[in-house]
C-alpha cells in the first residue's frame, strides 16, 4: 500500500524531467521544475517516514524491467529511512534551487536531468530486484554525470565527468558481478530469491568484496574516492549538495541492503576489512580536505571522511553481528544510520552555503574570499551551524552519531577474534584523529571564507542571497540543532530499520528521563544533548547579562592591535594554505609526499619571495596512474595493428587458422 504512495511521487519526478526535456529547458521553467521537485520530494520523504516508523513491508511488481521478472519494488523500514534522506535532501535542495537556479547560465543542461536524478535515487532505494536496482543505480550515476557536465566548457569539469563516469562504470560492473554471484546464474534476480539462497563463506566473501568496490566507489571509500572531489564540486551547488549529501548515502544503502540483508551472516574478518577501509577513509579524507583551498572541493573531500565514519559504524555492526552480539550490532548500526542522516543534513547545508558564496562572489577559491560574515550575515550563521555540526562538536547532531560510534567501539573488547581486537582500537584512534582534524578543517573553511577581511574585490562586493536559498539553509541548520539536542527521537525512529536488519535494537531512548540517550546502560555511558545545550546557553547568557549589568558594556572600535604591526593590506592575513601549513608539516610528507620549496631573492633584490608547495595524491599515483599508463601502453602497442600491410593481416588470419587446426589435431 505504502509503496504506491512512494512510487507515485517518484513517477512524478520522472515526469517533471520529461516535461523539462519537452520544454527544451527554457529558463522560465526553472522555478516550476524546482518547485514541483520540492513538493514531490517532500511527499517521498513523508512516505519514507511513514514506512520507517511503521516498520511494515509493502511490495509491488510493475510489468517493466526484466520481462520474466518484472520490476519489484519494496518499501520497508530501511528503505523508508533512506527515502527520508533522499526526499528531505531533494526537497530542500529543490527549495534552494528555486532561488539558486536563477543564476544558472545554461539551465537546459540542468533542468532536464535534475528531477529524474532525484527520482532515480529514490528508485534505487525502492528497488527489490537486481535489475531494477542496477538500472536505477546507473541511471542515477548517468544523470549526475550529465549534471556534472552542466558547466562543460571548463576542461577540468569534463575531466571530472570522465573520471566520474569511469568510476561509476567500474562500480556498476563490480555490482553486476556481485549480483551474478547472488543470483547464482539461474536468473534468481529478485531480492527475495537472493535472501533465501544459502551460500558458502567463500562466495559470501567474494560478494562482500565486490559490493565494497561497487558501493564503495560510489560512496567514496578510499582508495576508490578519487572521482568524488573532482565531480561533486563541478556540478551546480544544489546538485553538489545532492551528490555529496544524498547520493553517497544511496551508495551506503546499496552496501547495507546487499551485505546486511541479502548475503546473510558475515564472517568476522569481513567486518575487519570494512573497518580498516572505513578508518583509512576517514583519516585520509579529512587530511585531503584540509589541504584544499577550493571551498567546494574541501567539502567534497570531507564527504569522504564522513563516509569513512559511516563505514566504521557498519564494520562494527558486522563485527558484532558475526559474533551474535545483537546489542552491540544494534548500537553500531544505529550510529551508522544516524551519521548517514546527519551527514545528509550538514553536508547539504554546507554545499548550499558554498553555493551562496559562489553566487555572491563568483569565487570558490577560499584564497579570494574572507569577511563574508559582514556581508552575508544570514548565510554565515547557517554555515557556522553546519561547520559546528560536521566537526562533531556538542551539542549539535554530528557529535551524537560519532559519540555513538565511540560507544560501540568501547564495548568491542568482548569480541573474541584477535584481528578485531587489534583493528578496532586502531580504527578508534583513526576516528578520533579524523574528528579532531575535521574541526581544524572547518575552522579553516569558515575562518578563511567568512571571517577576516575580504581578500578580493568580489568578496568585498558580496551580497546576501535570496530567501529561498536562505530558508533552505535554515531548515537544515534547524534540523541539525534539533537532531543534536533530541537525539533520542532519532534513535527511536531508526529502531525498526535497525531491528529488521540486525535483529535487535537499542534501548528505547524516549523512555529515559530528561531525554538522555543511553546506548547500553546508564552506568556505562550516557549523553544529554538537550541539557548540555541548555547549560551552555544558560551559562553564556547569564555570564553575559551579569557582566553587562554589573560591570561594563561599553566598547569602542579601533584598529586591530596585532602586536602593534600595522597590517593594512588584507594580503597579510593568514591564507588557507598557510593555515593548513602546520598540519601539512605533520602529516604531509607521509600522506601527500609534500614538498616545500622556498625561493628567496638575494639581499638587495626587490623581487618577491615565493613558497612552492607540491602535494601529490599518492593513491592516484600508485593505483590509478599505473592503470592509466597500462591502458595507454597497451593501446599504443596494439595500435600498431591498425597499420599493417594486407599481407600481415592475412598472416594473422593464417596464423589463427593454423592455431585452430592444431587445436583440432590435439583435441580428442
Amino acid at each position, binding site marked *: 500500500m505504502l509503496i504506491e504512495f512512494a512510487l507515485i511521487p517518484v513517477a512524478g519526478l520522472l515526469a517533471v524531467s520529461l516535461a523539462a526535456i519537452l520544454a527544451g529547458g527554457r529558463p522560465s521553467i526553472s522555478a516550476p521544475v524546482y518547485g514541483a521537485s520540492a513538493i514531490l520530494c517532500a511527499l517521498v520523504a513523508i512516505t519514507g517516514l511513514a514506512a520507517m516508523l511503521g516498520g511494515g513491508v509493502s511490495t509491488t511488481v510493475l510489468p517493466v524491467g526484466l520481462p520474466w521478472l518484472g520490476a519489484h519494488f519494496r518499501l520497508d523500514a530501511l528503505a523508508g529511512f533512506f527515502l527520508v534522506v533522499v526526499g528531505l535532501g531533494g526537497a530542500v535542495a529543490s527549495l534552494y534551487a528555486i532561488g539558486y537556479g536563477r543564476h544558472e547560465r545554461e539551465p537546459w543542461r540542468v533542468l532536464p536531468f535534475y528531477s529524474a536524478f532525484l527520482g532515480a535515487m529514490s528508485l534505487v532505494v525502492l528497488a527489490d530486484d537486481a535489475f531494477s536496482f542496477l538500472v536505477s543505480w546507473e541511471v542515477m550515476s548517468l544523470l549526475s554525470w550529465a549534471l556534472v557536465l552542466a558547466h562543460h566548457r571548463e576542461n577540468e569539469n569534463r575531466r571530472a565527468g570522465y573520471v566520474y563516469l569511469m568510476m561509476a562504470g567500474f562500480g556498476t560492473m563490480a555490482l553486476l558481478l556481485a549480483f551474478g554471484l547472488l543470483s547464482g546464474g539461474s536468473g534468481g534476480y529478485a531480492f527475495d530469491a537472493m535472501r533465501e539462497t544459502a551460500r558458502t563463506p567463500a562466495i559470501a566473501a567474494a560478494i562482500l568484496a565486490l559490493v565494497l568496490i561497487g558501493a564503495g566507489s560510489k560512496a567514496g571509500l578510499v582508495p576508490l574516492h578519487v572521482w568524488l572531489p573532482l565531480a561533486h564540486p563541478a556540478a551546480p551547488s544544489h546538485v553538489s549538495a545532492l551528490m555529496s549529501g544524498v547520493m553517497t548515502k544511496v551508495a551506503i544503502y546499496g552496501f547495507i541492503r546487499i551485505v546486511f540483508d541479502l548475503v546473510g551472516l558475515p564472517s568476522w574478518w569481513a567486518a575487519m576489512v570494512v573497518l580498516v577501509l572505513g578508518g583509512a577513509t576517514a583519516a585520509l579524507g579529512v587530511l585531503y580536505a584540509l589541504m584544499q583551498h577550493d571551498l567546494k572541493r574541501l567539502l567534497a573531500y570531507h564527504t569522504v571522511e564522513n563516509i569513512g565514519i559511516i563505514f566504521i559504524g557498519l564494520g562494527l555492526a558486522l563485527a558484532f553481528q558475526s559474533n551474535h552480539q545483537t546489542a552491540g550490532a544494534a548500537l553500531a548500526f544505529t550510529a551508522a544510520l544516524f551519521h548517514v542522516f546527519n551527514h545528509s543534513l550538514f553536508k547539504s547545508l554546507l554545499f548550499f552555503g558554498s553555493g551562496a558564496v559562489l553566487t555572491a562572489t563568483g569565487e570558490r577559491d577560499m584564497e579570494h574570499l574572507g569577511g563574508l560574515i559582514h556581508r552575508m550575515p544570514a548565510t554565515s550563521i547557517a554555515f557556522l551551524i553546519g561547520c559546528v555540526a560536521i566537526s562533531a562538536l556538542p551539542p549539535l547532531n554530528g557529535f551524537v552519531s560519532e559519540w555513538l560510534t565511540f560507544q560501540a567501539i568501547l564495548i568491542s573488547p568482548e569480541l573474541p577474534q584477535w584481528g578485531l581486537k587489534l583493528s578496532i582500537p586502531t580504527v578508534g584512534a583513526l576516528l578520533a584523529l579524523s574528528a579532531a582534524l575535521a574541526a581544524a578543517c572547518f575552522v579553516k573553511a569558515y575562518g578563511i571564507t567568512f571571517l577576516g577581511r575580504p581578500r578580493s574585490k568580489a568578496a568585498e562586493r558580496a551580497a546576501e542571497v535570496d530567501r529561498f536559498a536562505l530558508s533552505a539553509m535554515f531548515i537544515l541548520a534547524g534540523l541539525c540543532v534539533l537532531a543534536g539536542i533530541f537525539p533520542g527521537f532519532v534513535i527511536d525512529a531508526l529502531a525498526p530499520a535497525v531491528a529488521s536488519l540486525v535483529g535487535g535494537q537499542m534501548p528505547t531512548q524516549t523512555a529515559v528521563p530528561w531525554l538522555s540517550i543511553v546506548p547500553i546502560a546508564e552506568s556505562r555511558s550516557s549523553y544529554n544533548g538537550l541539557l548540555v545545550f541548555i547549560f551552555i546557553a544558560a551559562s553564556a547568557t547569564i555570564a553575559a547579562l551579569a557582566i553587562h549589568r554589573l560591570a561594563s558594556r561599553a566598547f569602542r572600535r579601533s584598529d586591530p592591535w596585532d602586536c602593534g604591526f600595522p597590517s593594512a593590506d588584507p594580503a597579510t592575513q593568514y591564507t588557507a594554505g598557510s593555515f593548513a601549513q602546520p598540519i601539512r608539516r605533520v602529516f604531509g610528507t607521509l600522506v601527500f609526499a609534500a614538498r616545500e620549496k622556498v625561493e628567496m631573492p638575494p639581499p638587495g633584490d626587490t623581487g618577491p619571495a615565493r613558497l612552492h608547495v607540491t602535494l601529490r595524491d599518492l593513491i592516484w599515483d600508485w593505483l590509478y596512474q599505473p592503470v592509466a599508463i597500462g591502458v595507454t601502453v597497451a593501446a599504443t602497442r596494439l595500435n600498431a595493428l591498425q597499420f599493417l600491410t594486407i*599481407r600481415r593481416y592475412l598472416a594473422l588470419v593464417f596464423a589463427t587458422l593454423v592455431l585452430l*587446426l592444431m587445436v583440432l589435431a590435439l583435441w580428442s
Partner: protein
Amino acid sequence: MTPTMPQTIAMTGGFVFDVAHLLAGGLVLVSLMMLYQRRLYALLNVFALHALVLTFSVAWQAYIQDAPHLYITAAIALVFKAIVIPLALHRMIVQLGIHREIETAGGVGLTMLLGMGLVALSTVIMLKVTSEADPLAREDLAFALSVVLLGLLVMVTRRNAVSQVVGFMSLENGLVLAATGAKGMPFVVEISVAFSILIAFIVIGIFLFRIRERFDTVDVQALDRFRGEMS
C-alpha cells in the same frame, strides 16, 4: 558369393583411388613447388601447372563419379586458370615492369619447412575422420586442405600483389579439389564460375584502380601508407 567379385571391386577401387590420390597429391606437390619459386615468371608458370593438374583431377572425378557437369569445371580450370589468367598476369607484370622482381618475406627454406608442416597437419587432422567416411573423400580432403593452407601460405609469404593473387588462386584450386571430391555436391560448377569471376575482379581491380599509378608499385605494402591514422 564368389571370392573374386569383392577383389575385383577392390582392385578397381584401388585403381580409382590411386589415380585420384596421385592427382591430388600432385597438386600438393605443385603447391609446394610454388613456395619454392623466387621469380614471378616462374611462379606464374608453376601456377599454370597447378591449374593443369587440377584440370586432370577434376576430370578424373567427373569420370569416376559419372558426373558430367564436373567436366565444365575442369574446362574452366583449364581455359581460365591454366591459360587466360597466367597470360594476363604475364602481360601485366611486364607492363608494370616487375617481372624480374621477387620479394619473399622470410627465407624459402623456412617457408618450405612451414609448408611441409602444414601438409603434416592436414594429414593428422584428416586421420581423425572416421574411416566409415569414404576413404577417397578422406584422402582427397587431406590434400585439398593442404592445398588451401599452402595457398594461404603463398599469400602470406609474398609481398607482391601479383604473387598474392597467384596464392589466392591456388587456394581456390584447393577448394575446387575438395568440392569435386565431395560426391554429389551441388553448385560445384556455379561455385567455380563464381570464383573465376572473383579472381577476374581482383585482376581487373589491379588494373582498374591503377594501383601502380596511384601507389607507385603494386606492392601492397605501399597501399597502407594512405591512412588517416599514422601517429
